[in-house]
């Protein structure tokens, strides 16, 4: 069922300790800062977080990590010049890391949404990221067996939603949003704008409303064009 929710706090209120939470965004683009802040406020802890990175600077996911709410990160690129909160927790042995090649991360998330039990991919074959994994040679290429990544909740950011939850995104802020929406049991979306049903061209809907559970409007979201420029 789809719900339109007034505040980010209410939107994330149902997220329980120990949940697996997918968080959209690549760098700051598409990162749902306001939903993450609300999650921090909610006090939920022992979280497994799925995101491409492991937080940047002193905002969003980085704060969730700083405050010790993240038990485990599943990501492709935790190390950045400004990933100091992750770096500190990691070096102190206070956070678990599952490092996944970015394409495997995307494909594993997509597999969860699409009901695929697992797949073989050449990515990572012969590397330490394939250690302990099943491999086989297919059509002469070494391939690694990868499994879907499911989540309890996805927090994502889109540009617009209509009345049935159809979503469109903006430029490279689309990134993980559509596949995370499909992979999570409960998808919470912050949008800049809610438009009437019928206002989105059915040809241009990126995420159909079937993948969306909760929508909250955040008019002047951090990371949007106005904020950066």
């Amino acid at each position, binding site marked *: 069922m789809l719900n339109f929710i007034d505040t980010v706090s209410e939107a994330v209120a149902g997220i329980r300790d120990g949940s697996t939470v997918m968080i959209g965004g*690549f*760098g*700051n*683009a*598409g990162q749902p800062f306001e939903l993450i802040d609300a999650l921090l406020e909610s006090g939920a802890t022992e979280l497994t977080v799925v995101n*491409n990175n492991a937080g940047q600077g002193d905002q969003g996911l980085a704060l969730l990590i700083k405050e010790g709410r993240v038990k485990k990160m599943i990501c*492709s*690129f*935790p*190390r*950045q010049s400004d*990933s100091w909160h*992750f*770096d500190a927790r*990691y*070096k102190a042995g206070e956070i678990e*890391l599952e*490092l*996944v*090649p*970015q*394409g*495997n*991360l*995307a*494909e594993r*998330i*997509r597999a969860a949404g699409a009901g695929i039990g697992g797949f073989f*991919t*050449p*990515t*990572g*074959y*012969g*590397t*330490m*990221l394939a250690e302990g994994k099943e491999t086989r040679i297919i059509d002469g290429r*070494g391939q690694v067996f990868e499994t879907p990544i499911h989540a309890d909740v996805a927090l994502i950011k889109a540009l617009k939603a209509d009345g049935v939850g159809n979503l469109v*995104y*903006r*430029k*490279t*802020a*689309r*990134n*993980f*949003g*559509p*596949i995370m929406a499909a992979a999570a049991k409960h998808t919470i979306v912050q949008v800049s704008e809610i438009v009437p049903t019928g206002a989105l061209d059915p040809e241009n809907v*990126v995420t159909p409303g079937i993948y969306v559970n909760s929508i909250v409007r955040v008019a002047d979201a951090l*990371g*949007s*064009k106005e*904020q*950066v*420029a």
Partner: protein
Amino acid sequence: MSAQSNIQTSDKPLGRDELAELVARDIAPGSFVNLGIGQPTLVSNYLRPEQNITLHTENGMLGMGPVAVGEQIDGDLINAGKIPVTELPGASYFHHADSFAIMRGGHLDICVLGAFQVSATGDLANWHTGEPDAIPAVGGAMDLATGAKDVFVMMTLLTRDGVSKLVEHCSYPLTGVGCVTRVYTDKAVFLTGPDGVTVRETFGCTFEELQAMVPLPLVAAS
């Protein structure tokens, strides 16, 4: 070792920009290309419009334009290095799984990557120093290395300590096995493959001088 053909094409080693210009010139017209973070990004400065090259960025775009400046800067339009960029006419956006399907499905003609080491058979090491206290981060490197039709590496031939990064076997953790097809360095361009390493041209050194720097048998292009 082998032939004495003169393959030295420059009397000095190439600078980073000269090397980027050379790589740009070697990209076939109409190619779809992904330029890795760091040195490979310089290549975009030397692509000519008449080459009609389409740049892919793995965070979800084809038709990426130059780095954004001033009013163009838009937090929703960034490249894989998280730098604000621009959009060219004919661009398209797609989600991460579709973006990596382009890479992993073998649809990119060329990717250009940096490297710590490249082996004689084209193994690539560019994501992890292997040091025990290093925080590992792989990003899209393995997908690019494994998925692109051609993988070009750009690097200095020697480390700061003067050790060749072109090696018999990589000592750093691998990114991909047998994936590199060309290595562009300040001192030479190498073509790698299952049959060994051919030197296409040298810069600021002769083939023999180059061979003395590299701990594996080289063949000069004829």
